[in-house]
């Protein structure tokens, strides 16, 4: 079934949380630094791909159902569109939260070089999270499905 060595499995299991945390960091700082929902999501999904390689697609497919991933993907996309709909009273995609100090992500950052304020950007960080959810679920589903589809009978992944 699955003949990767114990070393690979252990190292992958240790690495996975770090990869995930780094990906989430990239998603979270999307409005301040290069990166964002897609890039961070791709990092997290590559961590998931690491697990698929180390433990075999069958073992992963037992834990994670592909239909759940597609629901998660839909939730991400719906979140993104709903966030865009919030500003419809002004225009579609209008950033209602930005520039309102006191509201969530509402801080107006000072113009010029600054250390970066996570609490700014209005709807953008939320949209980054929605996109990140969609990308994690989507890319993980792609990796998982391709791994299952290309599996030889009786061989490893």
């Amino acid at each position, binding site marked *: 079934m699955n003949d990767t060595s114990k070393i690979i499995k252990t190292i992958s299991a240790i690495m996975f949380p770090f990869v995930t945390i780094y990906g989430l960091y990239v998603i979270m700082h999307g409005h301040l630094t290069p990166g964002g929902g*897609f890039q961070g999501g791709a990092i997290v999904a590559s961590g998931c791909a690491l697990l698929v390689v180390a433990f075999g697609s069958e073992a992963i497919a037992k834990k994670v159902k592909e239909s759940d991933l597609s629901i998660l993907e839909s939730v991400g996309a719906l979140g993104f569109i709903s966030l865009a709909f919030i500003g419809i009273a002004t225009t579609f995609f209008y950033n209602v939260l930005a520039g309102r100090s006191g509201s969530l992500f509402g801080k107006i950052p000072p113009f010029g*070089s600054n250390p970066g304020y996570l609490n700014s950007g209005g709807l953008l960080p939320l949209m980054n999270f929605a996109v990140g959810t969609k990308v994690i679920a989507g890319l993980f589903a792609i990796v998982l499905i391709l791994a299952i589809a290309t599996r030889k009978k009786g061989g490893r992944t």
Partner: protein
Amino acid sequence: MIYNIPYIAVMLLILVGLYAVIAKRNIIKIIMGISIIESGVNLFLVALGYREGGLAPIFTNLPEKTQIPGQLVLPVPQALTLTSIVIGVAVLALMLALAVQIYKHYKTLDVRSVRRLKE
């Protein structure tokens, strides 16, 4: 001259990719060719966005005494490239999934055999 090197690389990448698409028989290699063309186009967009002495508009890490916004570049080509990469990932995944399924039905990845539809 030195600023033209990226564009020469773009030309070369696109030609290599087109060669792979036209001359190779394996479907996977054709898909790789399209990926190479896509990298060429992305490199073209990024090279377009280069301005000498320009800085990326990331406020958290600017050097002291930067003129704002005079020294910063408008990151539109970079945004275009990112969007194009995202689309490229989706297209690549779709093509590879189709290749897997085609192998199941035709028992081959040779593009000369995958032509039941002709005339």
